[in-house]
C-alpha cells in the first residue's frame, strides 16, 4: 500500500497513515476523472453547440435507457468499492488490538490529561514509543471533545458518561499535532498538544523518571476512604456483592438478564447504582455521581479490575512492565470496541506540562515534526 504521498498530505507517522492515504489517493483519482470528464464535456458542448442564430431550434432528443442504466450502474459499482475499502479500514481503526499499551485520556475544558499505566501523568503532551501498539481509553469531565492526531490519521470523540477508544502504532519518531476537533467552548482552539514518538530505549528512560503510586493502589485507597469496603466486603456478609473476581464475567442482574462486568457497567453502578442491581441485593447504594471525578472513577475501576484478574495472570495497572508487548488477560470479552476493557487512570492531580524526565527527549525537535 505504499504509494507516493500526494502533495498537501500530513506526515505519515502510524501504521494506518499509508492505508488511509491510499484510499484518499483512490478517491482523488475518481474525483479528478469525473470532474475532468464533466468539465471537458461541458466546455466541448458549450463551444460546439453554441447558439449561432437567435432562431435556432435544435432537434429534441429523447432519453436513452441504455445510457441511464450505464451511468446509474457504473457509479454504483465504483461507490461500492469505496464503501468496502472504507469500511474495512474503519474496522482496523476502531478495533484496538489486544496486545496494546493502554493509556488513559481525560478531556477537560480545555486540556488533555494522560495517564500511563506505569504511573506517569502528562497534560497536553503524550509520550509514546515507536513501533508499539497504543490503546487509548478516553472520557471527559465536561462536554464532548474529540481526540485527533492527523499524522496518525486517527480521531475519536470523547463523550461524557462513557468510555471511547482509539489506537495507533507510531512508525516515525517526532512530534505530532494533537487537536481537539469537536467544538468544546471558548478556548476550543487552545485545546491542542503534541504527541511525542520516541525510540523504545528513550521511552523506557522517560518512563523510569516519574512513577507514582500504581493506579490500582490509588483506587484501593479511594475504596477505603469512600466507605465502599463497608458493604462490598471480601466475605459474603456484606450488603453489596463481593467484587473479587467479577470483572470481565457475566453477572445476573434483577430482571433476569446477564450483564458483563466491564468498565461501562462499573461506571454506571457507581454513578447510578439503581440502574442494574445484582440479583439478590437491595438497591440501597447511594449514587457517587459528583463525588468522584472521572479520574477517580477510572482508579476505582482499576482497583476492582485488579481484584478480578484470574490467578496466574499479570495484573493490569500494577507497575510491572516496561510498556511494550503487554499481554492482556483472557477475561477480555468484547470484540466490539464498546466492550473493550480498560485500565485505570492514576492519581488525582496531574503534573502540568511536559515530560517527567529529560533523557527521553533526545528526539524532540521543537517546532519540527520528526527527527529521522
Amino acid at each position, binding site marked *: 500500500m505504499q504509494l507516493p504521498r500526494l502533495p498537501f498530505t500530513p506526515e505519515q507517522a502510524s501504521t494506518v497513515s499509508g492505508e488511509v492515504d491510499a484510499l484518499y489517493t483512490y478517491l482523488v483519482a475518481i474525483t479528478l476523472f469525473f470532474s475532468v470528464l*464533466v468539465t471537458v464535456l461541458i466546455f466541448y458542448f458549450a463551444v460546439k453547440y*453554441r447558439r*449561432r442564430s437567435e432562431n435556432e431550434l435544435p432537434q429534441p432528443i429523447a*432519453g436513452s435507457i441504455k445510457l441511464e442504466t450505464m451511468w*446509474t450502474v457504473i457509479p454504483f459499482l465504483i461507490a461500492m468499492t469505496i464503501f468496502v475499502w472504507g469500511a474495512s479500514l474503519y474496522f482496523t481503526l476502531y478495533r484496538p488490538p489486544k496486545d496494546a499499551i493502554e493509556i488513559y485520556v481525560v478531556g477537560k475544558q480545555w486540556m488533555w490529561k494522560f495517564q500511563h499505566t506505569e504511573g506517569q501523568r502528562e497534560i497536553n503532551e503524550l509520550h509514546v514509543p515507536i513501533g508499539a501498539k497504543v490503546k487509548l481509553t478516553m472520557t471527559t469531565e465536561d462536554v464532548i471533545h474529540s481526540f485527533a492526531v*492527523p499524522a496518525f490519521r486517527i480521531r475519536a470523540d470523547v463523550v461524557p*458518561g462513557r468510555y471511547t477508544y482509539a489506537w495507533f502504532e507510531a512508525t516515525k519518531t517526532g512530534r505530532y499535532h494533537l*487537536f481537539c476537533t469537536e467544538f468544546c467552548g471558548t478556548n476550543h*482552539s487552545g485545546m491542542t498538544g503534541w504527541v511525542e514518538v520516541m525510540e523504545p530505549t528513550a521511552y523506557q528512560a522517560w518512563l523510569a523518571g516519574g512513577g507514582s503510586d500504581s493506579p490500582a493502589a490509588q483506587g484501593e485507597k479511594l475504596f477505603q476512604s469512600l466507605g465502599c469496603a463497608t458493604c462490598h466486603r471480601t466475605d459474603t456478609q456484606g450488603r453489596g456483592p463481593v467484587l473479587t473476581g467479577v470483572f470481565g464475567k457475566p453477572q445476573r442482574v434483577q430482571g433476569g438478564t446477564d450483564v458483563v462486568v466491564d468498565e461501562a457497567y462499573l461506571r454506571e453502578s457507581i454513578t447510578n447504582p439503581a440502574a442494574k442491581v445484582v440479583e439478590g441485593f437491595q438497591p440501597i447504594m447511594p449514587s457517587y455521581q459528583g463525588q468522584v471525578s472521572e479520574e477517580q472513577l477510572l482508579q476505582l475501576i482499576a482497583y476492582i479490575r485488579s481484584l478480578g484478574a484470574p490467578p496466574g495472570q499479570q495484573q493490569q495497572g500494577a507497575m510491572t512492565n516496561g510498556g511494550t508487548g503487554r499481554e492482556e488477560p483472557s477475561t477480555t470479552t468484547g470484540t*466490539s470496541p464498546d466492550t473493550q476493557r480498560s485500565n485505570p487512570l492514576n492519581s488525582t492531580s496531574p503534573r502540568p506540562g511536559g515530560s517527567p524526565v529529560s533523557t527521553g527527549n533526545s528526539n524532540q525537535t521543537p517546532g519540527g515534526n520528526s527527527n529521522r
Partner: protein
Amino acid sequence: MSSIDASVPPATRVAPPAADSRVRFAHDNYINANYGIKSWLLTKDHKRIALLYLASITVFFILGGIYALTIRLELLTPAGDIVQPMTYNKLFTQHGIIMIFFFLIPSIPAVLGNFLVPLMIGAKDLAFPKLNLLSWYLYLAGAIFTIWALLNGGIDTGWTFYTPYSTTFSNTYVVAAGLGIFINGFSSILTGLNFIVTIHTMRAPGMTWFRLPLFIWSHYATSLIMVLGTPVIAITILLVALERIVHIGIFDPRLGGDPVLFQHFFWFYSHPAVYIMILPSMGVVSELISTHSRKNVFGYSFVAFSSLAIAVFGFLVWGHHLFTSSQSVYAGMIFSFVSFAVAIPSAVKVFNWTATLYKGSISYDTPMLYALGFIGLFTIGGLTGLFLAALGLDVHLTDTYFIVAHFHYIMVGGALMGYLGGLHNWWPKITGRMYPEGWGRFSALVIFVGFNLTFFPQFLLGYLGMPRRYHAYAEEFQVLNVMSTAGASILGVGLLIPGIYFIWSMRYGKFAPANPWAATGLEWRTMSPPPTENFVRTPVVTWEAYEYRPMEEMEVIGPDKGNTAQPAHGEATKN
C-alpha cells in the same frame, strides 16, 4: 465563444429600450395593482409574498456574509488577534444559523418557489394564500427572536447545538436563538404543505404530472422533506430548552441523559435539510440548462424520480455525521452504505444535465453561466462527499476544513449558484425588467473564481488536519488560509455586483418581454410582470414539458386575447 457579443442582448428577444426609463407598465400587473405598505404587508398574492421573502432573506444574507468575512479576516493570521475567542465562536455560530435557517432553507423555495410554482402549473395562486402570508410572518417572528438573541450577546454553540455544551455549559442565548429557529420551522412546514397541496390539486387542464417542469418535481420532493423533517428539529430544540430551563435529563449524562442522542435527533432533520437546500437548486438548474440550450431535459423521468429518491434516501443517512461519535461500527457501516446509495441519484442528474447540452443551442446568458458553474461545483461537492461517506477516510477528515469545504461546495457552489442563476433567469418575469447582461456575466465569473479560491484551499487544509471552528491555528496552515481569505474578498465583491444592478434594473432596466429566453414554461406565457391573477385566461396545456417551438407558435396569454407577436408588456407609456 467569441461569436457572442457579451454586452448587447440580441434585440429580437428584448423590447427596445424605453426612451425615458421612468415609465410604468402598460398592463395591469401584480406590482402596480396596489400601492402602499399595507397592500404589501397584507397581501395574499404569492408573487408579492415571494418579494417579501426576497427582501427579508437578502437582509440575512448580508448579515451572514459580514460574519463570514470577519471570520476570514481573523483567519488571515495564525494567531487569534482580531477578535476574542468567544467573539469568534459567536461569529461562526451566527454565520451558520443565519445562512442555513434564515437564508438557504427559505431561499429558493420561499422566493422562486413561491413566485413560480403557481405560474408554472397554470394556477392563480397557491392553494392556501393566507397560510402563505402566515408563513412569511412566522419567518419574521423567528427572525426577530434570533436577532434579539444576537443583539443581546449572541450564541456560541455552533449551528449544530451539540449537547451537553448547549444544554449545560454555554452561557449564551441558546434558548432564544433556538426559539427563533423553532418558530421559523413552522414557516418551512407551511410552505411545504402549501406546495404539496397546490401541485396536487391546482394544475391547469392538460398539465399532467409528467408535463410538469422539473422545478416543480424538485419542489415537491423538497416539500415532503420540509413537512416530514422539520417537526423533528422543532422537538429537538424543545428538548434542549427543557433541559436548559427545567433540567430534565435527556442529553446530559449527569442527569441520566445521552449526549449522542441529540446528534441523532439533530442530524435526522439536518441532513435532509441539506437536501432542502440543494434539491430546489437542482430544479432551477434543470430549467436553466433546458431553457438556455433550447433542449428538452435528457432523461426527464430519471431526473424527476431522482429528486424523490434523494428525498427518501436523505432520511436514512443521518448517522454518517456520527462515524467518530462512538456510534457502533455496524451502524456506521449501514449509514455509510446508504450514503453511497444517495450519491447515485445526484450523479444521474449531473450526467443528464450534461447530456442535455448535446446538440443543443447553447447561449452564454448569465443564468446559463450560473447553471454550468453549478454543475462543475456540485460535481466536486458531491464527489468530495464520497470521501466523507467512506468510513475509514471520514475518521481523518471529519471536523476538519475538508468538511467545511465540502459543504460550502454544496451549499454555496450548489444552492447559492442555483439561487442566483434562477434569480437572473426569472428576474425579467418578476420585475418586468432586464438586468444588464454584461455585468451579469462579469459578476458570475468573479463569483466563480472567488468561490473556488475561497474554498478549494480548504480541502487541502482539511486533509492536512486543520480542525474547523479554530480561532487560532498552527502556523503551517497559514498560506492556504491567506488564499482562502483572498478568495472570500473576491467572492464578497462578486456578490455585491448583482445586488447593485438588480436594484438599478428595477428602475432603469430595459423592459422585459413576456418570454425573453424563448422558453417553454407556462410562466413565460403570461405577461412580464404577470397580472395579479397570473393568467387572464386559464391556460390549457397541450404540449409536453420542454417542447421547444418557434417563438411565433408560442402563444402569450396577454391582455389582448391571443396576442402573440407583441411582447406582452405592451408599449411603455410615459408617466
